[in-house]
C-alpha cells in the first residue's frame, strides 16, 4: 500500500515536473499553458488579494445548496416512490435512461424561463444530482434483508424505530453512494452552468479570463477548482473506505 502510494506520488510529481520543465524551456508556449509553479503563485496572489472571496462564496454556496437539496429531496422522493410499487415500475424506464440523456441541454431553456439568475443554476444542479440520490435510496431500501423485518417484530420495535434503527443503517452504504454521486454531479453541473452562461461565479470567471487572454488568472482559477473538487472527493473516498472496512472486513 505505502509502496504503491509512493509510486503514485512520484508519477504525479514527475508529470507535474515534466509540465513545469516543458513550460519553462519554452517547449510549450506560455500563451497555451503556463508552468504549474506560476499557476500556484498566481492563485496565491489572487486568494491573498481577497478579490475572489465573493465569487468563491457564491459558487461554493450554490454547490452546497444544490447538494443539500438533492440529498434531502432525493431521499424523501426515494422513500415515497419505494412505498408505491406501481409508480415505481412506471418510473423505472425513466431512471434507467436519465443519465444517458444530456439533461444539461435544458439549462438554456431554464434561463429562458427564469432569466439569468441563480434559479436556473440551482434547478439544473438539482436536476442533475437528485436522480442519483433517488436511485440510490430505492436500491438501498430494496436491499434491506427481509429477515430484519422479522427481527424487528421479535424485538417488538415500532414502525419508526424499525425505520431508524434497522432499515436506515442497513440501507446506509447505498445512501452513501447516492450522496457521493450527488456531490460529484452537483459540483459538475453548477460549474458547467456558470461557465456556459451566468451573471457571476468561479465558472464565469474562468470563461472571462479565457476571453481576456488572461492566462495567469485563468489557470489560477482552474487550479483552485480542481484542488477543491479533488479535496472533496478525497474526503468522501476516505469516509467510504472507513465504512467499507467495517462492512466488508477486507482491511480489518
Amino acid at each position, binding site marked *: 500500500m505505502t509502496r504503491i502510494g509512493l509510486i503514485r506520488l512520484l508519477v504525479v510529481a514527475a508529470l507535474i515536473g515534466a509540465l513545469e520543465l516543458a513550460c519553462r524551456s519554452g517547449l510549450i508556449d506560455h500563451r497555451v499553458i503556463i508552468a504549474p509553479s506560476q499557476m500556484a503563485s498566481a492563485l496565491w496572489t489572487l486568494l491573498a488579494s481577497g478579490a475572489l472571496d465573493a465569487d468563491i462564496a457564491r459558487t461554493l454556496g450554490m454547490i452546497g445548496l444544490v447538494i443539500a437539496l438533492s440529498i434531502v429531496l432525493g431521499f424523501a422522493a426515494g422513500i415515497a416512490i419505494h412505498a408505491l410499487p406501481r409508480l415505481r415500475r412506471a418510473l423505472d424506464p425513466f431512471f434507467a435512461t436519465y443519465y444517458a440523456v444530456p439533461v444539461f441541454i435544458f439549462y438554456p431553456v431554464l434561463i429562458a424561463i427564469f432569466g439569468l439568475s441563480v434559479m436556473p443554476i440551482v434547478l439544473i444542479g438539482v436536476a442533475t444530482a437528485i436522480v442519483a440520490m433517488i436511485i440510490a435510496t430505492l436500491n438501498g431500501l430494496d436491499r434491506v*434483508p*427481509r*429477515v*430484519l423485518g*422479522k*427481527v424487528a*417484530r*421479535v*424485538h*417488538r*420495535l415500532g414502525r419508526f*424505530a424499525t425505520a431508524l434503527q*434497522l432499515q436506515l*443503517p*442497513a440501507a*446506509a452504504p447505498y445512501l452513501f453512494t447516492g450522496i457521493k454521486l450527488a456531490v460529484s454531479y452537483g459540483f459538475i453541473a453548477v460549474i458547467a452552468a456558470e461557465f456556459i452562461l451566468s451573471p457571476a461565479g468561479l465558472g464565469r470567471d474562468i470563461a472571462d479570463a479565457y476571453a481576456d487572454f488572461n492566462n495567469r488568472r485563468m489557470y489560477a482559477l482552474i487550479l483552485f477548482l480542481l484542488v477543491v473538487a479533488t479535496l472533496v472527493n478525497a474526503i468522501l473516498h476516505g469516509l467510504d473506505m472507513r465504512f467499507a472496512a*467495517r*462492512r*466488508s*472486513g477486507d482491511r*480489518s
Partner: protein
Amino acid sequence: MNAAPVPHEIHAQLSGVTRTYPTVPGAGAKMPVHALGPIDLDLLRGEFFAVVGPSGCGKSTFLEVLAGLQQPTAGAVTFEGKPVGGQVPEGIGVVFQEDASFPWLTVWDNVAFGLRRSGVAAPELRRRVEDAIAFVGLKDFARAYPSQLSGGMRQRVCIARTLVLQPRLILLDEPFGALDAQTRLLMGDEVLRLWRRTGATVLLITHALDEAAMLADRVGAMSARPGRFIEIIATGWPRGRDSTIVGEAAFGEITGRLWERLRGESLKALGHAAVPAMAAE
C-alpha cells in the same frame, strides 16, 4: 439409559391451527394455497422439540405462527396461557435461518441491541452482554464487526442476541442450514448447552434428520404441504447428552424410523407421486 425427567406443564399450545395463503406470489394462479395444518401440539415447559420435514412443507410457517409473526388462518396459539396474535410475546426469542446479524454494529452492540431498548441499568447490561458473548465463545471478537466473522460465528452472534434477553421459549429456524456437516454437529452441542443452561423450552426447525434425532426430546415429523405432524417420536435421551450419541444404536433406530415416515413425503415434495416404502410390504 436414563430418560430425561419428563416435564408436564404445558408451555405453548397450538390447537387446530391452519394457515392458507391467498395466492402464490408470482404464479398467476388465483388458488389459495393451504400451507399448514391443522396442527394440534402441546409444547411442554423445558422440553427440546424438533420439527423435521421435507423442504417447503410449512416448517417455517409453523414457527412463525407460533412466534406470533404470522396470524393463523384458523385455530389458536397460546403461550404461557395467553393467546398469541398480532405480535411476538415477551419471553419468546427467535433465531432465523438467514444471517440476521447487523453488519453496522460490533458483536458487542449486536448482542446488546435488545437489552438497550428494555431499559436495563448499564452495569447489569454489561454483565449480561459479556456473559452471553462468553457463552457463545466470541469473547475475543466482541469488538469485531460481523463481516469479519465466519457464517457459524455470525449465527452465534444471533444466538447470543436472543439469549441475552433470557427468553423462556427459544425458536430456532434451521439456524445451521448454511453450515457444513461437522460444524453443524458442534453447533448442535452448543444448542444443547444453551438449552440446559437456560432451562428454556427449545423448538428447533430442521431438515436434517440426524440433527433432530440427536438434539430433541421429541421429534415431530411433518408431512409435505400442507404440513401436519404424521408422527411424534420421543427419543428418550438423557438431559446431559451431546453429539457423541450419534454413535449409539438408538440414534440409528430413531433416524431410520424418521426416514421411513418421511421418505414418501420427501418424494411428494420433489413432485413424485407418493411411493410406498419397501419396508411397508
